């Protein structure tokens, strides 16, 4: 068990530090790279909790797809061209006060934290014990039954994201040549070809 504890603290420390670098780094590419590191460590914590399916999902979807896409986008931006405005000093006071107040509250909560009696029994589904079924199966069992409603609404959220992205970026420019398959296929030789007899020395008008 002690190894698991040590691993947890290693993962958690790296996770927190890299999260801080993500928002603090001056170079956006560094931010994305540290975001990937943060995802990996979060996946490590999920493995320690026995949720290996969520861990793999995090690595495959977030690291493999989302973060890499971010990286592409960030690399394509011309970062040097964007003039940096250092807001840190300007908002330092307000940020420190609000942050300190929140931190104090959380410390208070942490010091007196207890769960209600019977909170464990309130949970609809107990955490995976890693014995009977795999976590992917356990997730599948509840995702399409008890959690059908949030699952379907999440689907609609993705639909909104897709429609929104298209609405805000798609431009129908006029004056550009578009491929018209129908016109291409139905074109006849007689429409596009003709034989013109050119008399010598006169040229031809098209």
């Amino acid at each position: 068990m002690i190894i698991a504890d040590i691993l947890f603290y290693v993962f958690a420390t790296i996770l927190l530090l890299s999260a801080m670098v993500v928002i603090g780094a001056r170079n956006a590419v560094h931010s994305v790279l540290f975001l990937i590191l943060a995802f990996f460590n979060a996946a490590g914590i999920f493995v320690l909790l026995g949720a290996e399916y969520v861990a793999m999902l995090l690595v495959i979807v977030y690291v493999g797809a989302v973060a890499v896409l971010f990286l592409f986008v960030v690399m394509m931006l011309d970062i040097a061209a964007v003039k940096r405005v250092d807001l840190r000093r300007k908002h330092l006071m307000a940020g420190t006060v609000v942050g300190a107040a929140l931190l104090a509250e959380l410390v208070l909560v942490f010091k007196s934290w207890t769960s209600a009696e019977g909170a464990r029994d309130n949970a609809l589904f107990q955490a995976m014990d890693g014995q009977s079924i795999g976590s992917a199966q356990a997730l599948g069992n509840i995702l399409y039954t008890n959690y059908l409603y949030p699952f379907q609404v999440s689907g609609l959220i993705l639909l909104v994201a897709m429609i929104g992205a298209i609405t805000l970026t798609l431009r129908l420019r006029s004056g550009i040549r578009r491929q018209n398959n129908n016109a291409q296929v139905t074109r006849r030789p007689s429409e596009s070809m003709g034989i013109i007899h050119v008399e010598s020395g006169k040229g031809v008008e098209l």
Partner: protein
Amino acid sequence: MNLALFLPAIAEIFLAFAALVVVILGAFSKPSTATGWFYVAMLAIVFSLILAVRKYTGITMAFDRMFIQDNLALAFKCMIGAGAFLALALSIPYFTRRNAAKFEYPLIILLATIGMFGMVSAQDFLGLYVSLELQSLSLYVLASFHRDDRLSAEAGLKYFFLGALSSGILLYGISLLYGYTGSTSYITIANTLAAHEVVNPGVIIGLVLVLCGIGFKVAAAPFHMWAPDVYQGAPTPVTALFAMAPKAAAIGVICRLISSPFAPVFEQTQQILVALSIISMAVGAFAAIAQRNVKRLMAYSSIGHIGFILLSLAAGGQAGINGAIFYSVIYIIMSAGSFATILAVYDAHEGDEQTAYFSGLAKRHPVFAASFAALLLSMAGIPPFVGFFAKVAVFTAAVQANLTWLVVLGVLFSVVSAFYYLRLIKIMYFDAPFEDAAVLTPSRLWVFIAVLSALLNLALLIYPAPLSQFASWASQLQ
């Protein structure tokens, strides 16, 4: 499978199917037919409400007790549906005049409506969160719908960042409540909290964070920073939607929260609501005085009105919810008419909604001037109009809950806010028309909505029984 199990959510399911049909058919339709989808969306909203009302059989739950259909949910769905319907109606002339109608616009409003319906029907924090995100994401897109306009893009971006922040705060609060009670279900949380005499500080912080997150969504001060910029930058019909539907949905969520999961800790909830209410009323009264842009003015005015609604909710219980619903319905009616006028007056001056453009409206278009004046007097809460009775309903609930000092403050703030409403009336009636004032050529639909809402203002004054019956029916929770 027993399909009757899904019956409580029939409005949402119908709207989801309607939205999917619009996606598919809209993508293949000609851009010139885009206005037709506005009417389709309006019909879909009306039909979904008819279905919901006709299939309503008392309190029913669905989706493993994550979804509830009761009087409160149904009443708020009617209000949200009316708000979305009116916003769509206001948009039709706006987009056809600019030749900028797109089928995505009514589609996104439909999807936002599903989210808002889900919010008021949520019986579980997970269901609340996903519905809230569905609504918010749709609204972010709508705010920046004029993507080439700098102000509109800024509005969308600002709304998105602050909305994401508020969702984070809300989730943190939910996680603390979940940590304490072991459940995200409203019923289980209520039972667990009721079973423990001493309230754990973690629960209180969780409660504060959840209410702060919802406060962002209703633009209650001190979480209102986004509202003036977003109201100003978003296309005007979208601003009208923001003022009507999402406000009602978030008020519905607060009604649900204080009557179910937070009922055992109402004392603590009340303190937060009182604080939000006072600050909102103050900001709504004082910050609007210096405003010269009408859309920003409407933003501050809506913050003030939210303050009054929160005052009613702070009173708690059935009376408080009753007052909040009464006020919200009247607020939706007043907003619809006001935004119809604003749309007509600024049809030619979009992006620069100076109050000066209202000057001489009494001569340029007497019908608009008269209806808008009636609505402004109603918003100010001046006696012969129904806005006065809305405030009376709210104040009565607060007095019954021994919050008399809060009522005194509310009356004072409402006197201050009367100043800028009256100033607008003065500009319309006593200022000479500004130079090269164009002749107003408003769409008939705008005139109709403005006059209808002004007439409703008077009709509800003479015959308020249906509205008060609606409010008291909706606030019956058992």
